[in-house]
């Protein structure tokens, strides 16, 4: 590659890292200003609880998504049971359900005034039955595990499929039982995929605001929110946010280092998968487990939402609703395009320039996913405000009188926030897609006289298309579900479906939140179905 190309790639990569770093520095700058009174107060009162709550949540959700995701993926790829082909794709459907939607559906169903407890009361009388507290640690964990397990499921599934089962059979011919082979061969081989899915789910958990807010479960995100809007204390909010960030960085670094030396090259010749043919009670047990998960995580919530939405359909299905939908889609598409472009740059530069600056830039640029939406929003807002100020000053210096905002409060600011937040989402599939393209292909193209640009366009892009497509769709779905950053950064008149849901659920109006919620699920289903079809060809 000519020298000037190198600098362009490198500069863009470093700029992407800067776009992520600047808001983070703003967040950390909270420590520079001494607002110790509030901080001491926080430290004495809530910090211990926040840490404990967050730890329990991460532990619970982590175990939940791993068990559900890996277990279900193994059952649908390695075992033959009635309905396997259906569950193979259907178990990805909960990906379309935002956690906060699941949360308010569960509350609406299970709360004291909800249909379940009402029925129990009518049958057994008041106090004649035992019912677990829904707004509890267990409740939050269950809700989040139900909607986040598909991350682990999808990645583990494709890893099990590419593994084939000859290694499992080799292990069994060397004396390992079926379970032994699962734990000692299948799972360790799939570990990078499982850990990648797990880290996505955990970052989502760390950043979640909607679910914990609805459940009144105090974590860093809600504390930041309260510090910001309740105490109007920027510094306390940033300090809390920086704690959260440290946790995310630890998780991420651990994941990246764990892979170590044992690189798992995908088998280029995937042999036929011989599935365990389950018979007798086992096949019905597996069928029940798969049905139960699908029902709880998808079918039941959708039915409940549909029935709620039906009651308000006449009133609420108006031009305002269509406007919300249009804005949500627009924002999603714009963000997806920008984010994928950014992720391609990162992945290419990472491969073509293996130096310290590029490596750390890429590591930094893909950190945004762990940044809670609200904190990110604040960071970006403050960063853009100061950039606006600099611009205004500069323009005034050259004699142009302007007032106001170029970046702050524009759609651009929101899109940048989305990009920062979801670069990691797009980077994953693109990077692994690129990893599958052998270097000799590019060398062959160069040898046949193609320039670097032509090679990129004619060789990499067509081969990368599945990865690009996946990346774009994942970003689209995530942006549409995104709540806190959107609420803070949206320009006037850019309400989205998620914002509407927050407004309605905070007033306990489940029915009126149901229509945007079910819309979000339905639209979110399209990319999920495309993902499903793509994986079916696998």
């Amino acid at each position, binding site marked *: 590659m000519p020298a000037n190309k190198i600098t362009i790639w490198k500069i863009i990569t470093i700029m992407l890292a800067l776009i992520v770093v600047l808001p983070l520095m703003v967040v950390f700058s909270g420590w520079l200003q001494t607002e110790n009174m509030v901080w001491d107060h926080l430290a004495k009162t809530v910090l211990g609880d926040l840490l404990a709550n967050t730890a329990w949540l991460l532990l619970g959700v982590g175990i939940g998504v791993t068990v559900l995701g890996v277990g279900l993926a193994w059952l649908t790829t390695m075992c033959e049971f009635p309905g396997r082909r259906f569950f193979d794709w259907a178990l990805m459907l909960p990906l379309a359900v935002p956690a906060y939607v699941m949360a308010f559906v569960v509350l609406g169903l299970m709360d004291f005034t909800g249909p379940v407890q009402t029925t129990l009361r009518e049958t057994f009388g008041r106090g004649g039955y035992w019912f677990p507290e829904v707004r509890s640690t267990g409740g939050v964990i269950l809700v989040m595990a139900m909607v986040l397990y598909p991350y682990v499921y999808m990645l583990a599934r494709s890893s099990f499929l590419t593994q084939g089962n000859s*290694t499992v059979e080799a292990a069994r011919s060397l004396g390992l039982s079926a379970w032994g082979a699962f734990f000692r061969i299948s799972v360790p081989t799939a570990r990078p995929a499982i850990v990648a899915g797990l880290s996505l789910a955990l970052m989502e958990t760390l950043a979640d605001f909607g679910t914990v807010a609805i459940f009144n479960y105090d974590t860093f995100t809600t504390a930041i929110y309260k510090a910001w809007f309740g105490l109007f204390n920027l510094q306390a909010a940033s300090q809390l946010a920086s704690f959260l960030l440290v946790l995310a960085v630890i998780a991420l670094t651990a994941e990246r280092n764990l892979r170590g030396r044992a690189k798992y090259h995908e088998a280029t010749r995937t042999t036929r998968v011989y599935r365990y043919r389950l018979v007798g009670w086992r096949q019905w047990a597996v069928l029940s487990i798969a049905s139960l998960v699908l029902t709880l995580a998808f079918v039941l919530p959708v039915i409940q939402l549909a029935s709620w939405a039906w009651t308000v359909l006449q009133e609420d299905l108006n031009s305002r609703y269509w406007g919300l939908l249009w804005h949500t889609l627009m924002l999603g598409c714009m963000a997806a395009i920008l984010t994928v472009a950014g992720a391609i740059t990162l992945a290419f530069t990472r491969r073509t320039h293996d130096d310290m600056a590029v490596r750390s830039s890429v590591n930094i640029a893909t950190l945004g996913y762990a940044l809670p939406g609200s904190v990110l929003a604040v960071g970006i807002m403050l960063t853009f405000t100061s950039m606006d100020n600099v611009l205004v000053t500069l323009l005034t210096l050259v004699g142009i009188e302007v007032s106001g905002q170029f970046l702050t409060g524009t759609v651009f600011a929101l899109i940048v926030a989305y990009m920062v937040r979801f670069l990691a989402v797009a980077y994953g599939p693109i990077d692994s897609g690129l990893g599958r393209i052998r270097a000799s292909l590019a060398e062959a193209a160069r040898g046949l006289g193609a320039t670097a640009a032509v090679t990129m366009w004619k060789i990499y892009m067509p081969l990368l298309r599945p990865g690009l497509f996946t990346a774009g769709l994942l970003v689209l779905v995530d942006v549409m579900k995104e709540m806190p950053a959107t609420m803070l950064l949206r320009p006037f008149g850019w309400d989205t479906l998620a914002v509407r849901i927050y407004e309605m659920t905070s007033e306990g109006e489940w029915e009126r939140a149901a229509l945007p919620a079910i819309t979000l699920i339905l639209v979110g289903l399209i990319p999920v179905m495309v993902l499903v079809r793509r994986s079916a060809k696998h």
Partner: protein
Amino acid sequence: MPGILEIKNIRCGYEGKTIVDDFSLSIRDTTLNCLLGPSGCGKTTVLRAIAGFEPVLKGEIILDGRVISSKTVQVQPEQRGIGMVFQDYALFPHLSVGENVTFGLRKQSSSQQRKVAQEMLELVGLEDCMNRYPHELSGGQQQRIAVARALAPEPPLLLMDEPFSNLDVDLRERLVLDVREILRQRQTTTLFVTHDQNEAFVIGEHVAVMDDGRILQWDLPYNLYHEPANRFVADFIGQGRLIEGVLTSHESVETSLGMLAGNRSYEWPAGTRVDVLLRPDDVLLDVEEGVDCLITDRHFKGAQIMYTLRTPGGDELLSLVPSHLDINTGQKVKVGVDAEHLVVFRQ
């Protein structure tokens, strides 16, 4: 004497599709055996049934006097103690070479494991690779490790499923010889599956030619070549052409190359129309008395040349002769036949 492995009339497959039916085979201790057949003939299914990955719907499989598979019995693969080498090597990507090789020795002490690993890696000539990972090795090295791993627990029977088919030709030929040497040296009873007859002939002391789920001939390689039991084996093994003829007695056939006779006799009456198998080494060129044939093609192979010829009757022949007999295509040459094993099939 019953063999170490007895397969009796097994049937394999799933609902609606029988892959292997009424399949029987007996393997004696310390022998190298081969299942040879085109892809899809069921040879891999037989191997997987022996290893315990494929249930048996009928018949039984007996290892060392113990029924391991039948309609009612299905001993788990890990309790059979049968070694297996896979087509795609199936090395555990997250374990080092040493850990791969000792995987089947988990119940032994770690010092013993180390000793065996060292010994096995020396056996396959990769003693320096103990601490490396599978993806750092070449295909041929990975295959050697796979063999070492399967042999380390000293299995009473080793199964190999097309173990060399992913390697390039040169490497394959060398590795086949190496592996045969190792197996002979360790006197490991082996059942080897392949679609490549060269491999089968090098490794297999006994070779079973399979098609469509059945054994067509179970014999020594020499006999498979010179005395194929039926047309399929004749066609599948080695090169050669069938030419038309008519039986004139139980031992002789009239063909466009004249009267042919060998050391075999056939029960069919004189006048029966038959096809005669002529191998390239049965057909002699430039003989004193023979039939003039046209050379249509010529393939130089170094020490030998393979000629394709057309008889006056229109039959095609192949002839393999030392390469100092150099004749150009389009020329005619006198052709004679020296077929000690006259193989004839009824039309």
